[in-house]
């Protein structure tokens, strides 16, 4: 406990430095939220495995470090090129060590109906949208990591798509950590998509070096009536890093949100994903893939809240676990009393490639309405012996047969991504990882 307090004091002290760096912005309204979040951060405790929500995920390794505020460094375009999709075809925002790098980014001067910029710029301009929504959905009162994020909100991506605007070019967000041992970044995203608007967003989290870093990410997404959002996230940080992320999605009438969450890196990767149907007719897809090896731990907690009738949710999470890695999947689907005509489908499938890998999977359906169609299932298995024999009987080496089956199992999750460049790249990356 004292250790925890010392650690909290460390971040509180760092907050003073952070505050000084804000200059005039510390006078903004939002700064009051930061301060409130900081005081909540002080009150809250870091979770232990005694907390139901963290039962299988012991984060004490993360608490062994005093993560420092990052310093900005400059990278050359050549150094990051290979992590980006074509800047011609994508609107591009690049963050290095948590800082927006304008020279590496490529944001067209004007796209009708779209505002996309560094969050800190939006805050400086006192954007009313930011004021209205930022921190409204992510509960810093109850989550210590979200409190930490909220206290340190500065850089990140603000996307606002106006009514009826259909943004053809996908937006790519590249969050890199480079030089710097034991740094923490708190990237913060706010996406607000107004009525009938459409947008596609891809986030990539990547470390360029083998330092122990901590990414504490929070993303809030507001999907207004009839809007359509596709959101892909690739977390490919180094195997020493920590990645804690929260995604909050607020779905309005007949809106459609799809998330593809691919988690490959980090020693401990924890995602909390919460989607709420706040009106009728919504569609929500949560797809995810985690690949883990060595001693990685990947933990996904999702909650789909069917608060209103006539909504469909579709969730598919797959995992491929090797060595001594460990996965936790906790998928909750809540169907409230009024939410008649709900369709909710959830599936978690895992393949264990080693005897030492472990998966704890817990689908939870809580249904309070009676006229609903809900299904859920979880499987943990090995590669099919019959499948392996079939391929080998056709001449495949044992290794090729194994990797072919693993690739087929895993790549299925990303097949429905509509941005072909992103789908192809992810498939290629999976093939490279799995068919080595």
């Amino acid at each position: 406990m004292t250790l925890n307090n010392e650690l909290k004091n460390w971040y509180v002290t760092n907050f003073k430095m952070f505050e000084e760096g804000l200059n005039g912005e510390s006078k903004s309204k939002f700064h009051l939220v930061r301060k409130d979040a900081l005081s909540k951060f002080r009150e809250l405790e870091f979770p232990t495995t005694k907390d139901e929500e963290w039962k299988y995920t012991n984060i004490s390794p993360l608490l062994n470090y005093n993560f420092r505020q990052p310093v900005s460094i400059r990278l050359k375009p050549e150094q990051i090129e290979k992590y980006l999709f074509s800047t011609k075809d994508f609107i591009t925002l690049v963050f290095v060590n948590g800082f927006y790098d304008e020279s590496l980014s490529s944001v067209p001067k004007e796209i009708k109906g779209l505002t996309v910029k560094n969050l800190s710029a939006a805050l400086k301009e006192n954007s009313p949208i930011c004021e209205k929504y930022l921190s409204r959905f992510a509960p810093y009162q109850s989550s210590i990591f979200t409190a930490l994020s909220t206290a340190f909100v500065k850089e990140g991506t603000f996307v606002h798509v106006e009514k009826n605007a259909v943004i053809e070019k996908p937006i790519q967000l590249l969050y890199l950590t480079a030089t710097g041992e034991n740094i923490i970044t708190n990237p913060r995203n706010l996406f607000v998509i107004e009525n009938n608007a459409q947008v596609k967003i891809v986030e990539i989290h990547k470390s360029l070096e083998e330092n122990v870093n901590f990414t504490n990410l929070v993303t809030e997404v507001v999907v207004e009536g009839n809007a359509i959002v596709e959101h892909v996230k690739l977390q490919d940080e180094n195997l020493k890093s920590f990645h804690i992320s929260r995604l909050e999605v607020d779905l309005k009438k007949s809106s459609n949100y799809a998330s593809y969450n691919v988690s490959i890196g980090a020693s401990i990767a924890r995602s909390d994903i919460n989607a709420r149907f706040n009106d009728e007719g919504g569609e929500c897809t949560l797809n995810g893939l985690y690949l883990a090896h060595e001693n990685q731990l990947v933990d996904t907690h999702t909650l789909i809240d069917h608060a209103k009738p006539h909504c469909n949710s579709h969730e598919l999470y797959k995992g491929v676990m090797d060595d001594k890695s460990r996965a936790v999947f906790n998928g909750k689907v809540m169907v409230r009393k009024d939410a008649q005509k709900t369709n909710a489908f959830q599936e978690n499938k895992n393949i264990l490639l080693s005897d030492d890998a472990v998966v704890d999977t817990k689908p939870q359906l809580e249904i309070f309405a009676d006229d609903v169609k809900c299904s859920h299932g979880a499987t943990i298995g090995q590669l099919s012996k019959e499948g392996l024999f079939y391929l080998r009987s056709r001449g495949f080496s044992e290794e090729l047969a194994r990797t072919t089956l693993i690739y087929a199992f895993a790549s299925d999750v990303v097949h429905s991504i509509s941005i072909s460049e992103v789908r192809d790249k992810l498939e290629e990356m999976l093939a490279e990882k799995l068919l080595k």
Partner: protein
Amino acid sequence: MLEIKNLRVAINGKEILKGINLKVNKGEVHAIMGPNGSGKSTLAQVLAGREEYEILEGEILFEGKNLIEMAPEDRAREGVFLAFQYPIEIPGVSNTNLLKNALNEIRKYRGQEPLDAMEFLTLVKKKMPIVEMRQELLSRSVNEAFSGGEKKKNEIFQMAVLEPKLGILDETDSGLDIDALRIVANGVNQIKNENNAFVVVTHYQRLLNYIVPDFVHVLQNGKIIKSGNKELALELEEKGYDWLKEHEAEFVAAK
């Protein structure tokens, strides 16, 4: 080409094959018939290298090489092909992908260059008419949502592309309608030549009207209890297996 000597095989401690002897020369077609559970599929799977079976005794020589010591993939690369009684579905792996990898693994083993995409496509196009294979099936996942007949057709199509020396057909005819049976059997006849050989497991004479066997063997309770020419199949069709049992009993009693 293939010589099986006194093969005894068990699974889960239960002896299934109890001393099989069989010799297949190139250019020949051997039919294996016999009641359910007599061990026909066991024999087929053992030849293809299924590892769950325990070889208690005996030898399997393929072109003079000891098959028992060989991994399934090496058997395939040497030229053994099994058309499965129950072909499995492999979601996420397209038929084209399977064939291309299989072909190139086999070619690599034989010291040949891999086929490039164009050469491969040309080859596949050439083979498609053999079993009237539809293009649409090729781009789908292996056997996924294929009808029973399409699965069987697909096995023969793979055989046409991979050109094995020995084709083992495990009840390829079961589940086929009359037209499909004719197409598949004609396919096998087109693949057949003086340098390859086939072992055809079947319950029905009607397949053997198309694929005419040089020899017919009756497998019962893990043993080949009778061998003969194609007339034997006709006789079995007429009289059933019980006739053979009586026959055998008489045979034993007379001694």
